[in-house]
């Protein structure tokens, strides 16, 4: 831990005193995500930090960092105003390269799906699992519908995410779900735990690559990226992706034409022009 901390110095803002020390949650190619607090100790937040890149010219580096943070924040605000489930922005310092935003409780959709699938027998092993029982799978199917609806809501506002994966979506437990679930449990605790893993509200996160676009092409590529990511992360649930698309198709007026475009994209891959 100490080694990693010396290797990656935190942004200056995190060196000032707080009720709890910040923790490094994850590290990407462009930035790092810390969990810390905003203003008061009981208000957790995520701090996204884009450290300066020593290999870039300082002026260019500062400008790139600033524009990228600013565009991410603008997209988040736009989504939030339109009611798309995304984290709220709390405070930012584009010049210093950081932004504090709402901390989303829960786990990534990826973890939820894997937890659900984890207890199932391997499909290759027994032939009787070839015919899945629909009622049994309902919680997972419903999650796919909710993901489709969330992506649809995002696209409706004129934003494409740019990096849709099941890791970039959180499942936030519903506030009232605790008691509601608790009272109906009892019969089968295992089933209930699994249902809980795929329950909750879908919240889209990480808009670092998001752009504002209304074109079918960009939206279809967004779905295509998700489809490919989904197939490689959850091969055993691949057949359920159709449910997601079906739900997406009913979220806004132009969604059906995006799905038609998706067919084209599948045929040729993500890049329309083979340049770059």
């Amino acid at each position: 831990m100490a080694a990693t901390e010396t290797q990656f110095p935190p942004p200056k803002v995190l060196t000032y005193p707080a009720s709890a020390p910040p923790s490094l949650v994850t590290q990407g190619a462009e930035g790092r995500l810390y969990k810390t607090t905003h203003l008061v100790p009981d208000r957790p937040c995520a701090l996204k930090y884009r450290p300066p890149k020593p290999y870039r010219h300082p002026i260019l580096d500062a400008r790139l960092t600033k524009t990228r943070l600013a565009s991410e924040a603008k997209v988040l605000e736009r989504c939030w105003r339109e009611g798309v489930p995304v984290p709220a922005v709390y405070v930012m310092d584009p010049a210093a390269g950081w932004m504090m935003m709402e901390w989303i409780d829960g786990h990534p959709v990826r973890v939820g799906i894997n937890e659900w699938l984890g207890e199932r027998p391997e499909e290759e092993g027994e032939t009787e699992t070839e015919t899945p029982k629909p009622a049994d799978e309902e919680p997972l199917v419903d999650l796919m519908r909710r993901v489709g609806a969330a992506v649809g809501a995002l696209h409706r506002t004129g934003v494409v995410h740019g990096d849709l994966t099941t890791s970039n979506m959180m499942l936030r437990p519903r506030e009232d779900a605790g008691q509601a679930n608790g009272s109906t449990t009892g019969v089968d605790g295992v089933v209930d735990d699994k249902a809980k893993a795929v329950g909750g509200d879908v919240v889209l996160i990480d808009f670092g690559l998001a752009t504002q676009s209304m074109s079918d092409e960009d939206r279809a590529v967004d779905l295509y990226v998700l489809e490919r990511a989904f197939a490689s992360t959850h091969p055993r649930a691949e057949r359920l992706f159709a449910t997601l698309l079906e739900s997406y198709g009913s979220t806004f007026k132009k969604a059906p034409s995006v799905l038609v475009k998706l067919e084209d994209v599948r045929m040729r891959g993500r890049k329309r022009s083979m340049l770059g």
Partner: protein
Amino acid sequence: MALEKLELEHVPTAYQLYAGFFRDVTNAEFLHAQLLSRNSEFEYAFIDASSVISRLHLVSAVYSAVNVLLDGTLRTPNVHSEIVVSLNTNNNIADAYRRWGITPGKTKDLIVVKVVPPPSPAQDETPTQPPTQLAIWDHLQQHVKGTPTPLTDSELSQATDWPKVRKYYRLNGVPALDRLADEQERRKHSERLAIMGMALRGL
């Protein structure tokens, strides 16, 4: 004493933050005049409480201003005016003073914020002692003619002029708010949007 010491996350302990709330203030003209004449005894942020939603909303602005102060990139004369400017969603300073600052003849409920930075070393041989909480409070009580009130969300909400806040933070016709039936929920969401608007100031 109704002057509260604010403790905010990620603020160096050497910086002391105080805030107070006065209702039914009768001498806004006098206080405004002190700011205009740059009277150094009146280094306060005077904020019109009718444009403020909650404590969180208020301290968001205080934090932004202190962050800018630490950074050394103040865009206004001092950290106190910076607090007022931080409440705005754009970079129009005059606009910010008019909307969130103290306005003669209009401001009835007043929030006062005082930032006491650590004494700057090696300036002169006479290091000025930072004023104590008691001294600040005495000075405020002497000059602000109004009713000292605890700086709580419930007191603040009584002063909030919602039509004004909705206009300043462009909260009219926002889908995320219009779909909410519960008034309490809507206020919570409005607060979030206001803070987000401030965070994105000038972008």
